[in-house]
């Protein structure tokens, strides 16, 4: 046979079959439509960030918010309130974006719609080590929790990945998902051993458990930045890898993808993102699981669109949830970790209903 046919196998290929996912053509109508949607999402996100600075127990007019940001006057009470809301808004953006990206990538790597960032054990690992921190070392503050949480998240993820990699085929999607689910369940049971026997620990832990972005200052946030940046870089560059992995390991290999290596690198990015997010904000469910599905209804399965959309939509959800949580039970607040699910679930259910059988 002659040279024109695409070669089906072998690691040599820069040659790509015609049906392999390629970038949108310059005049591609759906590409332009998706870009417009993405722009709209970014605008919504910016508006929400503004609202997050303005809305709360003490409402600040938008003009004053702008003043507080540009010509800060420390003696002005409104300005001080706005400044106090900056870290939580930034954390909302960071943690939301991290969870959205990590969720989308996780579902691609595990090729399972039920996979969320928590499935590789980060939430359970972080929770267990935080409980140990409270129980054994008497830690009580958010800035005390972060390193415990990060240690637990990273260790659990590495263990899950190593276990899934054992055996002949390496970390196949099914093994990864099952190993993660198994280890998560085991770790949270260990955690419950402590919680059932120590009421004091339960009393502290239950407030970390709900997850939220309030009450963390810059000293909590800043250590997380380098981890988040590295993770985001890895995952955003992995769109093409995820597209070929979605076709199945064999086809991906045929496309010249080094399956084992690329999956390992992507998982590293995921761990950095969601491990840090969990360390900073506590376990926030729903966002990483559901945002990528919601996004797919708009973008279709192409990960080079799913990833940036998730990066925009997830923080929007988290900020919206946080804002609603501030005003819904005045004078108290409902943590963002609770509100994300309550705000997001109806929207998600609506998407599931009107969609045409979402699949990966």
């Amino acid at each position, binding site marked *: 046979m002659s040279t024109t046919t695409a070669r089906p196998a072998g690691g040599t290929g820069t040659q790509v079959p015609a049906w392999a996912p390629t970038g949108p053509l310059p005049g591609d109508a759906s590409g332009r439509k998706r870009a417009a949607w993405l722009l709209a999402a970014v605008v919504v996100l910016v508006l929400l960030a503004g609202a997050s600075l303005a809305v709360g127990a003490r409402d600040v007019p938008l003009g004053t918010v702008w003043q507080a940001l540009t010509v800060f006057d420390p003696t002005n009470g409104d300005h001080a309130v706005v400044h106090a809301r900056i870290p939580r808004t930034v954390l909302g953006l960071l943690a939301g974006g991290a969870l959205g990206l990590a969720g989308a990538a996780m579902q691609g790597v595990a090729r*399972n*719609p*039920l*996979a969320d960032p928590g499935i590789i054990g980060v939430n359970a690992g972080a929770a267990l080590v935080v409980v140990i921190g409270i129980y054994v070392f008497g830690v009580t503050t958010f800035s005390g929790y972060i390193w415990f949480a990060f240690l637990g998240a990273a260790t659990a993820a590495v263990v899950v990945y190593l*276990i*899934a990699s*054992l*055996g*002949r*085929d390496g970390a*196949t999607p*099914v*093994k990864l*998902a*099952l*190993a993660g*689910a*198994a*280890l998560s*369940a*085991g*770790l*949270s*049971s*260990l955690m*419950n*051993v402590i*919680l*059932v*026997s120590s*009421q004091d620990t*339960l*009393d502290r832990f*239950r407030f970390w*458990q*709900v997850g939220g972005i309030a009450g963390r200052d810059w000293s909590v946030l800043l250590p997380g930045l380098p981890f988040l940046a590295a993770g985001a870089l890895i995952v955003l560059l992995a769109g093409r890898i995820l597209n070929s992995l979605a076709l199945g390991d064999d086809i991906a290999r045929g496309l010249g993808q080094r399956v084992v290596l690329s999956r390992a690198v992507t998982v590293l990015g995921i761990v950095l993102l969601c491990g840090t997010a969990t360390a900073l904000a506590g376990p926030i*469910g*729903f966002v990483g*699981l*559901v945002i990528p*599905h919601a996004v797919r209804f708009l973008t279709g399965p192409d990960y080079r669109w799913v990833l940036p959309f998730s990066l925009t939509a997830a923080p929007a959800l988290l900020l919206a949830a946080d804002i609603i949580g501030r005003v819904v039970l005045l004078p108290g607040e*409902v943590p963002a*970790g*609770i*509100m*994300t*699910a*309550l705000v*997001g*679930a109806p929207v*998600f*259910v609506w998407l*599931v*209903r*009107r*969609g*045409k*059988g*979402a*699949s990966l």
Partner: protein
Amino acid sequence: MRLDRTAVLAAAVVLLFFVSVLLGSYTVTIPDFFTIVANHLTGGAKIPGASFIVMENKLPRAVVGTMTGIAFGLAGALFQTMLRNPLASPDVIGISFGASAAAVVAIVLFGAAGAVVSGAALTGALAVAGLIYAISSGGKLRRTGRGNAAGNRLVLAGVGIAAALQAVVSFLMTRADIRTAADALVWLNGSLNSASWDRAGVLFLALTVLVPAVTFIAGPLRILELGDDAAAGLGIRVNTTRLILVAIAVSLAAVATAAAGPVSFVAFLSGPIARRFTGKASLPASAFVGALIVLAADYFAANLAPLLLGGTVLPVGVITGVLGAPFLLWLLVTANRKDA
């Protein structure tokens, strides 16, 4: 061959049942046991102490444990087969969270205990299951044609609802008085500590309806495994069959959760272990494995754990998680087939 292995599992369940009734922190001899039961049934003389412990504590506990395990094992295997997803189990797709949320609401907001909590859990599980099914079967579902689209939608709807309900549970836990929260935590982990004959009776009635229903549906289920289109081609009414399957699996999970709380891992683990042990997917084997897991874990939780933890009787679900996880990991590592 398969029958043999399944029989081995059944024998192991019986053995473990008697171990948990006769041995442990209070030992009963075999002749005593039969005397106690016979006298209890005929109204004869009681053996002081032993009669009470066996008839009011150990026996109902073992009976509820066995039936809970059977129900969870069957429910998990049904879900995993029907949805063709090893991660699908009642807890993942939201039914357990329905039960948990309703139970925690009952415990925290209304100070309920005992049978009221069970009733709330049952109602919650069934209501959530109905909601999930209504969501996933409405809209443009009809004849999407693609493989397992209906199953995927069921799973996605369940996942969304589960996340919302979990948030409700976490929030209520932060609002409750700490002692109430601790009680709720025990329930949330799944516990046989409050097993009683009432509960056993309800569970038994439910199983006498549901287990025959499972045997009735097992044949169509096997055909459904081939994919929606293939099954339709073979003359199976796919949507009706799936509705019946969902109803049976949900009811099994719901009655078990109502009796003992959401004992983690049993539904999730029974199918894979049974398949590993018998060499193929088998519903009866999954049921026996479920019973084995619950009985073994509860024996440990009630008799051995207090020795290590200064008297704390752990909820059985904690043990199923702690011991189940390494076991599943071991299965994964040693499995030489691609699909676990």
